[in-house]
């Protein structure tokens, strides 16, 4: 199970970083999303997977193998919530950038470039 999770995490990191290196805005944001999910899977795998047990301590049987560690689960939950908020913000930002630049090519958006595919940005203030 750990091996499978490790491979999944690795694939998510690799695809996420690859997408972030592309020039299109949408790919940048999808890449960010994949990367944050990759780190969530990694936290889960690194902390050790306990099979079929709830993250609760029973009344009598209190050994390390009798319950799943709740800490990584809560870490992942927190990270998912933060990642969701950040992703929502990035989407809005990308939308605005696309509106003002008329392009989703990151290189064409740069302040120094004159490449404009559609209407130019509204005045500078």
């Amino acid at each position: 199970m750990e091996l499978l999770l490790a491979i999944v995490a690795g694939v998510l990191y690799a695809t996420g970083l690859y997408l972030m290196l592309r020039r299109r805005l949408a790919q940048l944001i999808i890449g960010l999303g994949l990367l944050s999910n990759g780190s969530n899977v990694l936290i889960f795998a690194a902390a050790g997977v306990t099979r079929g047990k709830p993250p609760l301590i029973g009344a009598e049987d209190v050994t390390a193998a009798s319950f799943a560690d709740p800490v990584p689960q809560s870490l992942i939950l927190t990270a998912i919530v933060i990642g969701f908020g950040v992703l929502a913000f990035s989407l809005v930002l990308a939308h605005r950038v696309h509106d003002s630049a008329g392009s989703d090519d990151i290189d064409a958006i740069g302040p120094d470039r004159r490449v404009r595919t559609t209407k130019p940005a509204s005045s500078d203030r």
Partner: protein
Amino acid sequence: MLLALPILLPLLTAIALQLLPHRPTLLRAVAFAGALGILIAAIAILIRVEAEGIRVLQIGSWPAPFGITLVADVFSSLLVLMVGILGTVITAHSFSGVDPRRETFGYHALIHVLLMGVSGAFLTGDIFNLYVWFEVMLIASFVLMSLHRTRAQLHAALTYVGLNLLASAFLLTAIGLLYGQAGTLNFADLARAWPERRTAALDATLSMLFLTAFGIKAGLFPLFFWLPASYHTPPAAVGALLAGLLTKVGVYAMIRVFTLLFPDPSGRMYAFVLVLSVTTMVVGLIGAIGQGDFRRVLSFNLVGHIGFTTVGLALGTAAALGASILYMLHHMLVITSLFLVSGWFLRQKRTTNLLALGALYRTQPAVAALAMVPLFSLAGVPPLSGFIGKLAVITAALDGDHYWVAGIALTVSLLTVLSMARLWDGAFWKPTTTAARVAPLRGAIVAPVGILVGLTLGLTVIAGPAYDLSKRAAAQVLNADEYIRAVLGPRG
């Protein structure tokens, strides 16, 4: 309870600012009172820490490794004090430096959320909590950076957001791996449990992940490119806050994590940080020379001087780290005041391009002379505070027999004078090229810079005690046992 105040006060202020009717005068009064509250709380914390040693607050009374702990030692309380000072001064600057429409559109509330995130990062004793505070201040700074909708600002915001989120992903990865190996997130518990589980492979992986994550946030070579690409576009007050506080949080986190988790200054990791710090100094300087915009020159100088604040960590002695802490305090005051000075130009001419500026010395000599102090303090002209900080850093490098570090630091300082003289000439001295008369600067926008200049000069006057204090802060940071005992109790 006292330790929670620098986090609770800005939180309550931000909520109040959103709920109150959006009248500018009311919002300004509440925002200023909130910032002043942080300052007072920070002074109280520093006094308590000075008198009684490291202060600890277990949130919700959960005992140390299980709950979230807030810890204030001399280093973090000094930095929280800077949060209070800069928060107050920047709020005051915003009254005349930020346009009223944006002010009523949640600007002050966002500033307070940012201050909360920074104070939280400085005070927390839990590494996952540190990540959460990083995210809090990042999301606030994201919104502050993109409040304007000009193309340059949106592009800068995109660069900033992308790189900082990448840094967060690296930090989260490092925390996940660390938890998997050590089984705890509390700094003190980690410092106790981690040394037994360290292996060379884990050390290399984790230290590189932490270095990358904090290096991006701090603006260390070769991870700094987002910084000069984004810090010159937001309003001056926002730029000042980002430049003064946010990069220093990265440096603080780097110092805290490295001294607790990898406490062996002879390691290869430290040599690597030393090379990176020195390269950062040089690259920042070279970058600044090629720029023609007041704020871009400042951004590159900001990067260059981050090198001076991390070099103390790399040298590993209490004297060197103390010198870096002193330099950090000086740099926060000075770089913030210079970014606020750029707000003058935005007010007068709506640009900070050096070609369009000039002649402020002719029209308002007293105001220009005020700006001269931070300019030459940044360059390290004696007897200003920058000189004292650099002298301390270079002395520490010489004491550690790192002559090449001292040599490069000296050369960089000398050439920074050139860069600052160019700013002085371009923005204040040379005749202006535009014929249009500009309105003179009023007291409200000059006064915040005046206060910061006063504090810089104050730091120069009390340089001896201040250096002693920062050396004590450094000794405390390097002494992990004291930290562990304070947090976990005597049994640790």
